[in-house]
């Protein structure tokens, strides 16, 4: 569904992603794990059209994403839930969601928008209760739900999530990960960037480990969870247990 070949991303003269190749198949949850500055979010920016300076190939279904800006990427069927949520705080929850369907509303598909809204409310009933409330008054978890809901309003086939667990209590992280599983069951493909490797690998099918702009490890999520290097670098508690056992 998404094929990335020899992707190099640049910030001016600095190469932040150094020739990575990865693929995402339909209805998969793929996670990218790695430390801060390892290039995960840069990759998300390149896919979503925010970062224009890259070389290599990014193909989504039949579309070459080269030269596409974010609205074109959304129209092609990819939505990003950005790091830090980036909701519109003074606007109501309803307006935030409506704007998520901007590209659909422009094409006059109003019935589909109502259906999308109903689906989002099914997934996150709390958003229906808070519909007329300014988005900035929601709790952190609710804001994350709104950010995911807003991205879903465009009816994407591929959902990109950049650090959805950031700043959330463990219970909420679990809930968000549960929602991702539900979305996958409904046919959505998900590419998830996370520093909370344990949470991400617990829901993912496969994962890629990033280090300083390169992929250093890839494989099934279960294999990565039991990999010694991954345990040492990203699953601190498990590593201690692992160390004790040895």
């Amino acid at each position, binding site marked *: 569904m998404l094929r990335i070949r020899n992707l190099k991303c640049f910030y001016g003269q600095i190469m932040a992603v150094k020739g990575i190749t990865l693929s995402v198949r339909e209805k998969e949850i793929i996670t990218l794990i790695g430390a801060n500055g390892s290039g995960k979010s840069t990759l998300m920016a390149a896919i*979503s059209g*925010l970062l224009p300076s890259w070389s290599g190939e990014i193909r989504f279904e039949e579309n070459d994403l080269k030269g596409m*800006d*974010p*609205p074109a990427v*959304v*129209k092609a069927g990819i*939505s*990003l839930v*950005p790091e830090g949520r*980036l*909701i*519109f*705080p*003074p*606007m109501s929850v309803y*307006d935030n969601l*409506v*704007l*998520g369907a*901007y*590209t659909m*509303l*422009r094409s006059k598909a109003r019935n589909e928008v109502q259906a999308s809204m109903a689906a989002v409310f099914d997934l996150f009933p709390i958003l229906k209760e808070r519909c007329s409330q300014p988005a900035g008054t929601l709790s952190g978890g609710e804001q994350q739900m709104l950010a995911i809901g*807003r*991205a879903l309003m*465009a009816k994407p086939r591929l959902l990109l999530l950049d650090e959805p667990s950031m700043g959330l209590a463990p219970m909420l992280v679990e809930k968000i990960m549960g929602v991702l599983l539900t979305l996958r069951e409904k046919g959505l493909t998900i590419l998830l960037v996370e520093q909370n490797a344990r949470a991400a690998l617990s829901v993912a099918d496969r994962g890629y480990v990033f280090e300083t702009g390169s992929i250093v490890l890839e494989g099934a999520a279960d294999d990565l969870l039991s990999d010694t290097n991954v345990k040492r670098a990203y699953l601190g508690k498990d590593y201690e247990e692992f160390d004790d056992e040895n």
Partner: protein
Amino acid sequence: MQEFLQYLFSGITNGAIYAVIAIGFSMLYRSTDLINFAHGEFVMIGAMTMVTLTVAVQVPVMPAFIITVVGVSILGLVFERMAIRTVRRPEPIVLIIITVGASIFLRGLGMLVWGKDSHTMPAFTAHPPLDIAGARLLAQSIWIVAIAIAVAACLHLFYKRTLTGKAMHACAINKQAAWLVGIPSKLMTLLAFGLSTGMGAVAGVIIAPITMPAYDMGSMLGLKGFCAAMLGGLGSLWGSVLGGFLLGILEALGVGFVSSGLKDATAFLLLLLVLYFRPGGLISAVKVKRF
């Protein structure tokens, strides 16, 4: 009392004009973070076009009003496409200097097209002035205030109720987030220019009958509108309306009860006080940082 009322009416009338100009500044700033120092010239072009259409071409007031506002809005779109979007490195200071240059250019163009003389046009309707407690209120003043409030109310509804209005508001809150949900931010910027210059045209049209429009009227009106926008809160619709009326009334009372020499000084004194004590304006729409 009669004297006070007379000054008050005058202040409210001028205030309404400042409010419409301030709305133009604010709506553009809200969507693009840009202050258009050529905004006053769009007011001038609006006034001069209205005079030309109604006096020289004999177009009735209502169609002339619409043609002027649409025409000046299109000019604003052309200005954005040709002078703003083509800038290779659109840093704020570069864009501001471009708008200052555009202001000088448009003023010169106004002089070439309409000459150096002042022009006149009749009021929208020929009703006699109303007598309220001895003070006279011109019918045109009622038109001005009514149109200013109607314009603000329409814009309020536009931002709250329409998808395009919400999208423009979203761009103003966070351009990157708006872009990510599929809102074409460049189109929104273009629309903001059209809307802003259209507001300038409205101000020019309503002021034309009570002033004697000339090619050089835009600079001072632009500065007053800017002061009003700063006073109320740059970026805030109702803040701009409040700032406009407050500026107009204080200016008129200053002229009446202190000194007529204070007319223009009032605006800039208020601007200095606002910048010092409350840089975000009375109704803060944006966070302001001091250097």
